[in-house]
């Protein structure tokens, strides 16, 4: 019986939390921001496209197969004077007669998947390092933050390239390289936020009550740094997608034939630029830019909703 009531209590507490979150000024500000809503709409549509492509398209076929004897290489989209059947050639074909439409759709899955992994892992690493640096201070703080400083002393794409020179090429290796590039940014933001939280008296109170370090770190400090972390993650999501595709574009990420946006754009430059075959570059780039725009719109909206100073400036 007693377990039952405690469960009900926990459930009620959980529901109360969600209600509180939904009624919070942050969420209501965010939902009243038209641009942020457009951002959410773009991201959700891209997610749907990504999942649809992942479920219904055959990855192997997208990578290598030719569409069949009647379809030529580098054909313009059906509606722009390309070969029939037009509905199959919505975005035209690439240098190996592959359907750019399907490949672009599948590219959404690759971008979302590897973007999520990059941002997710670097957020977790950055938060952990940032909180530890802020809480323990002194030598720990110095060792962690000076290491971060060194990583931040490189322009981000250059650091990624240097790491690729160590690890070798490949999508997963590119993700590892970019995770190391993004971690210092999160560590810095979180450390700053955590230092502010540490000034609050309730941390002293918790310590006086005999709470152990990990409990203070992750139960009391981390939740209070969640807001800036979320904004930082959203804004960096767009950048991560651009950087992963950039490494693929330069030939250090996705392998040849991969339906990733970066690789498709590389094909567009290599096989479509001089001959004016614009569709090879246009469509994958458009989807990439739209996705990044979605995350930037949402991230901007979140930042404005979080920063009351900006709100005043906006009114």
């Amino acid at each position: 019986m007693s377990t039952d009531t405690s469960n009900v209590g926990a459930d009620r507490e959980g529901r109360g939390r969600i209600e509180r979150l939904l009624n919070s000024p942050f969420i209501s500000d965010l939902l009243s921001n038209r641009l942020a809503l457009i951002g959410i709409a773009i991201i959700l549509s891209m997610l749907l496209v990504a999942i649809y492509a992942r479920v219904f398209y055959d990855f192997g076929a997208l990578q290598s197969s030719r569409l069949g004897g009647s379809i030529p290489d580098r054909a313009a989209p059906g509606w722009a004077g390309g070969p029939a059947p037009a509905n199959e050639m919505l975005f035209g074909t690439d240098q190996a007669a592959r359907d750019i439409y399907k490949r672009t759709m599948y590219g959404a899955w690759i971008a979302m998947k590897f973007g999520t992994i990059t941002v997710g892992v670097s957020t977790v690493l950055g938060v952990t390092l940032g909180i530890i640096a802020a809480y323990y201070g002194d030598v720990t703080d110095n060792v962690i933050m000076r290491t971060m400083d060194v990583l931040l002393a490189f322009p981000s794409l250059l650091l990624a390239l240097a790491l690729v020179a160590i690890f070798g090429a490949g999508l997963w290796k590119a993700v590892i390289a970019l995770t190391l590039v993004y971690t210092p940014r999160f560590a810095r933001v979180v450390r700053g936020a955590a230092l502010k939280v540490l000034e609050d008296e309730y941390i002293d109170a918790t310590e006086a009550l005999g709470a152990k370090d990990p409990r203070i770190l992750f139960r009391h400090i981390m939740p209070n740094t969640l807001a800036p972390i979320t904004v930082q993650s959203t804004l960096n999501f767009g950048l991560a997608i651009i950087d992963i595709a950039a490494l693929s574009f330069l030939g250090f990420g996705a392998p040849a034939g991969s339906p990733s946006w970066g690789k498709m754009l590389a094909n567009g430059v290599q096989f479509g630029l001089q001959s004016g075959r614009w569709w090879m570059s246009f469509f994958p780039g458009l989807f990439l830019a739209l996705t990044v725009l979605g995350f930037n719109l949402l991230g901007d909206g979140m930042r404005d909703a979080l920063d009351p100073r900006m709100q005043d400036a906006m009114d």
Partner: protein
Amino acid sequence: MVSKRFVLKRLLLLVPVLFGVATFVFAILHLSGGDPARIIVGQRASEETVRQVRQELGLNDPILVQYGRFLVDVIQFDFGDSYQISKGNPVREVIATRLPVTLELALYGQAIGLLLGIPLGILSAVKQDSVLDHVTRIGALGGISVPIYWSGPILILLFAGYFDVFPAAGRIGSTIFLDKQWTLAFDLGQYTLTIAEDLPLTGMVTVDTLLLGRMDAFVSAVMHLFLPAVTIGVYSMALISRMMRSSMLEVIRQDYMRTARAKGQGAKITIMKHGFRNAMIPVITVVGIQFGTLLGGAVLTETVFGIGGIGTLIVSAINATDYPVVQGAVLTFALLFTLVNLGVDITYSYLDPRIQQ
């Protein structure tokens, strides 16, 4: 004014960071697992030759000895000789010929970003919620969302392909020959005495063509540089105008702005005299940070437009496992980025002397 002590302190703070950067660059070679000696002599060379080269390179020494030697060399900006790309030539020279190309691109890109971004940001803030403001804001958001390796090809397809007004690639027309020597010929009756010497050129085509007094070549260089500079400049314009707008909006609401207006000063003068300087402070930081993005952008822009700068050098060096070149190029970029940020810090403290305390 900027105190000497402040500058000195900033310089001293750089030492550990640069030390860390050098250590990381050293690690590039030793963590990558490839055998430099094997790369130099090729796959078909005998084991004996490889051993000999390894001995010559000092790769058999303890790692700490190698590290110490590397640090001493790096201070003199010596990375040894290139393995592959420019086989046998000092990396320092390879970089010296490539660096001006990248710098030229970055400088023009930055100039476009500043010249357009700052006025747009100010106008957007002053005329808040006007059509111009909305267009600028959404345009700027679009600008930072569009990757360079998409905007570049699209610009080429449009302006080099469809409209055919700009060249698609390269730095100068292929029919233009720049004679980098000046010659003096003395007629001494029987003999002709000719003095020929290389002109001290910068390596930046738009500057060199002017130094040589070749207007036709200069025009060609500018036409070639236009699309790449715009590609890279749009991105930095978007970042700068965003920061300028939000910074100006905050400044406009300050009491001193109202006071200035209350004492009868015109709106334009108030904004330019009191607003601008204060609003520039955060913008300068953004300029420093985005210079790193600009250098990364240079890698992509050079690849798209087929320009042989440090960016394309680094890409081909990684592909050719030419580690000394990778090391030299990465360190050059990090050094540039760090120095620009140092300059930003000093400018910052000049604009806001409170920082120095």
